[in-house]
């Protein structure tokens, strides 16, 4: 698999931000690294031709999450500590390293990006369900975005569950914070 210059730079940027979010000592700095990581990932999603996921990642991961984290941080005491980076124990590094090795070991078994399934098996493209959605989504649901068709029609019951989960999260937050109204 060959990477274009932009893709390579993005990958380096995202990895750097992820490591920064993990090892930076100041919580606010770590938070900023996390937001930058989300933004980088969202651009990667767009490059992988998943604009719906990219939009969600940018809006939720980089936007709302950062704001909520900053607010939570503003309501807590931030210790002034010396040193830019967290001191890492050997045990943590070994454990996280082992996990990364296990995850990376699964990467070669993924189909290459954009594979049409003729050379490498690619269940995402050659799967029967995918083809069904692509062929019938517009006729069945009259929406051009197949993602929306799956989300609101074919898998509508799941989406109702997700919407209720979001609603319940709001209600749970009200209960935990002993408030009666949202604003």
């Amino acid at each position: 698999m060959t990477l274009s210059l932009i893709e390579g730079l993005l990958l380096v940027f995202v990895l750097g931000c992820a490591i920064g979010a993990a090892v930076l000592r100041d919580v606010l700095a770590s938070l900023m690294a996390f937001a930058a990581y989300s933004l980088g990932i969202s651009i990667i999603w767009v490059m992988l031709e998943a604009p719906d996921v990219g939009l969600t990642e940018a809006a939720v991961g980089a936007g709302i999450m950062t704001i909520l984290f900053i607010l939570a941080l503003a309501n807590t005491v931030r210790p002034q500590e010396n040193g830019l980076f967290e001191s890492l124990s050997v045990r943590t590094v070994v454990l996280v390293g082992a996990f990364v090795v296990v995850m990376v070991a699964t990467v070669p078994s993924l189909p290459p990006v954009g594979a049409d399934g003729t050379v490498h098996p690619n269940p995402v493209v050659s799967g029967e369900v995918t083809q069904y959605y692509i062929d019938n989504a517009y006729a069945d649901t009259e929406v051009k975005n197949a993602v929306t068709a799956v989300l609101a029609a074919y898998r509508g019951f799941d989406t109702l569950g997700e919407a209720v989960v979001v609603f319940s999260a709001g209600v749970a937050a009200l209960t935990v914070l002993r408030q009666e109204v949202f604003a």
Partner: protein
Amino acid sequence: MSSDERTGLYVESTIIMTTVRVVAPFVLTFALFVMFHGADSPGGGFQGGVIAGSVVMMLAFAYGIDAAREWLDVRVVATLASGGVLTFATIGLGTILLGGNFLEYHLYEQFLSHATAYGIELVELGIGGIVASVAIGLFFLLAAGFGHAVDAPEDES
């Protein structure tokens, strides 16, 4: 005592206020575009709802969280959240009443042409309402903080 004064969260800045005043209508329009146009282009209720919620957060950052809290009508937020769930559930269960399966949109065709497309659009709007209001609610709840809630449980402002 307001939470803004307590934590020193709010800094009045002409630059931020002017920027937000100019940008907010466009962000809200973009949110509605993402929500309404999610059927034909990337986007949908979840994304559009988050963007719509962020408009209120922008206003809160520019004009102060307490000012935004007073400006915002809590009934609108609560109606959006519960109305979204009710809209989605009603559309889904309505088809069962008509003798079909859950969310079998085309059963509404007898009342309205292109009912499937309109049904999906309504469901997306419902999701958008839920997500926007819960995002706004979490924002204000976190801004108030836990101490605020324990000190004055009756204080709704």
